[in-house]
């Protein structure tokens, strides 16, 4: 029997331990998760700053409008519709107020055969319908228009979304602009966005150009907040970086702005 000296403990390097711990935590977190996939926006600067390079599938995301948009949530709804238009499958849209205009959804890439509406009498009903939809496999995602979103309610939605791998989007809209302060409250959502309309892209002729949004990522789990100015969803739900008009070729200008020109003539 020979005595071997006990192997000296390897020098602990804090970064390695930390990285290993992070891996462990991620493995624990991912246990119940159906998918780790993300849905990229297809806009470089936007995707680069989101963890994983896009909007996480199987997670809850919050979208709200800025200023007066808190009442209508029109830009927020269009933003959500654009995201889901790029996902595969049908969409369940839960709401309390039936003022969403279906033709506008079709214009951002969500035709009637892809959207099922569920009208609930109150916000609790909207949340319950969302959760039911999230448990059901085969949907692209679920949208719910709610004002108040408590930690408990958002946690339930987040867990249901994790299990099924669907996108859950809460479009936050309130009855009064003052209530929009509620957006500061913590929730279990993966990301929190705020969309505010900006003056549209300038045109060489009179008319309204492609709408622009000021998009703020207010909160992002495992990521940093930032803001960016973008051109709103096109017919397939894609966002685009605004380019200064002078930098574009004549062909691109004519092609991308034909909508505005055509209307100005009409």
């Amino acid at each position, binding site marked *: 029997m020979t005595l071997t000296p006990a192997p000296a403990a390897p020098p602990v390097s804090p970064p390695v331990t930390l990285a290993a711990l992070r891996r462990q935590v991620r493995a624990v977190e991912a246990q119940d998760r159906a998918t780790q996939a993300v849905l990229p926006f297809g806009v470089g600067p936007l995707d680069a700053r989101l963890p994983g390079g896009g909007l996480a599938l199987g997670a809850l995301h919050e979208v709200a409008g800025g200023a007066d948009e808190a009442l209508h949530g029109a830009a927020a709804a269009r933003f959500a519709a654009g995201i889901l238009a790029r996902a595969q499958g049908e969409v369940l849209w839960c709401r309390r107020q039936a003022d969403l205009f279906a033709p506008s959804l079709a214009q951002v890439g969500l035709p009637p055969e892809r959207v099922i509406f569920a009208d609930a009498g109150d916000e609790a009903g909207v949340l319950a319908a969302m959760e039911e939809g999230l448990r059901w496999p085969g949907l692209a995602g679920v949208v719910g228009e709610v004002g108040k979103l408590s930690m408990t309610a958002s946690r339930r939605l987040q867990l249901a979304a994790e299990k099924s791998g669907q996108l859950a989007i809460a479009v936050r809209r309130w009855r009064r602009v003052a209530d929009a302060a509620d957006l500061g409250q913590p929730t279990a959502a993966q990301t929190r966005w705020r969309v505010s309309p900006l003056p549209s892209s300038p045109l060489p002729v009179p*008319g309204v150009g492609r709408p622009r949004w000021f998009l703020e990522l207010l909160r992002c789990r495992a990521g940093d907040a930032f803001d960016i100015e973008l051109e709103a969803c096109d017919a397939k739900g894609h966002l685009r970086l605004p380019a200064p008009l002078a930098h574009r070729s004549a062909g691109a200008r004519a092609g991308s702005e034909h909508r505005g020109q055509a209307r100005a003539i009409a």
Partner: protein
Amino acid sequence: MVGRVGRRRAIAHMNLAAAKTGLRIGQAVAHATALVPGLVLHDLDAEADLAALQRLALWAQRLYSPSVAADPPDGLVIDATGCAHLFGGEEKMLIDIRDRLTKAGLSAKVAIADSWGGAHALARYSLRPVFVVPQGALGRELHPLPVAALRLPAELVQALAKPGLDTIGELDAAAKGPLAHRFGLEPIRRLDQALGREREPIEPVFARETLRAAKIFAEPIGAPETMARYLGELTVELCAALEAASLGAKALDAFFFRVDNRIETARLGLSAPSRDAPRLAKLLCEKLETIDPGFGIDKMVLAAPGAEALTYKQGDALAGRRAGADLSGLIDTLALRLGAESVYRLASADSDIPERSVRKAPALERPAAFSWPVDWPRPTRFFPRPEPIETVALLPDQPPAWFTWRGVRRRVRCADGPERVFGEWWKADAELARSRDYFQVEDEGGERYWIYRDGDGEDLASGSQRWFMAGVFG
């Protein structure tokens, strides 16, 4: 109609014209033909009448309530507990029943009351063709009616008339002890049933081909968990029967027979035929909270009326998420919670007028194409009631330079339009000359709105020339 009473031929039923000549039911045929020359006689076929009544009951069951029974010789009884709201109220439900029967060539009188006996009496002996008795007012309405309204045999009615008991009110006021001693318990039982003092269950009809499963309990059950468990067992049994017959249920009726002689019912409608037992059991159990077991339930019946053919479909175990996945289960669950009319798709309708261009379609329908414009802007939020706005416009064909909406004055930075929409003169004469001009306007903050002018800006016949806010783009 001629029937037999003992050995003599007597009148069993007659129509209104015959009644006006003064004939009465129970009169001998020889006597009647002598009194009214040219009387048309038909032999009564009681069995065929009863069979027709059963068919009518099945029709009503499909339309109105799971619990319907024939009330021979000439009536139907419907347990309308919790059903009237589906038709927009009790009166509307009765009018609907009457209209449908009239269309089918039947003359009918309908009444709704707190008890079977009460509704029976009022439908037959009240002058009103449609009679809604408010809750608690049954006694007041019944008292002036004759005793014959109580579903008593004719001999008993005659016997009661001898001591002067002609109306239900007089019978109700009489001392019950001597009454029972002299006439038996029957008049008192019928009186209590009519006034709602005694429960009278409606034993519902079933079509012969309706598949059903039943369970009888030695000891009454009442705990929700127990009910849910047995409901699950019944669903499995029923689904096995459906599978054997290659059928799928379009609706499920659950009947809970209570020990105190009442039947609680629950009806579940499905968007597509199904025999998926776990799913159906889950949906049924959501309905359980509307069931009041009272002192206990000693029998449960689960029926699948109007089942439709459902053949096997090859499953695709490998394809996980795919477009066109079967969503009927989700739609059923949501429809059960929110109401069937709250789960739908929005499809395009053939109209250029924005508020008419969208129609609700069933959630399981797959609208093929839409006719909405792709190039013309459409707002994300559309106000069902356009809000008037104050504007400053320079020229008739120009968008306004300023507008005030909800108290905020906004300067228009740029605008698109007009998109002129004309009235649909083929729908209404008033729309012949009407037109609207829609503009998309953007204010200095970048908010985009959809506004329109009612009219073409020149001719007053085309509209009021006032401006309205139609929607918000965002």
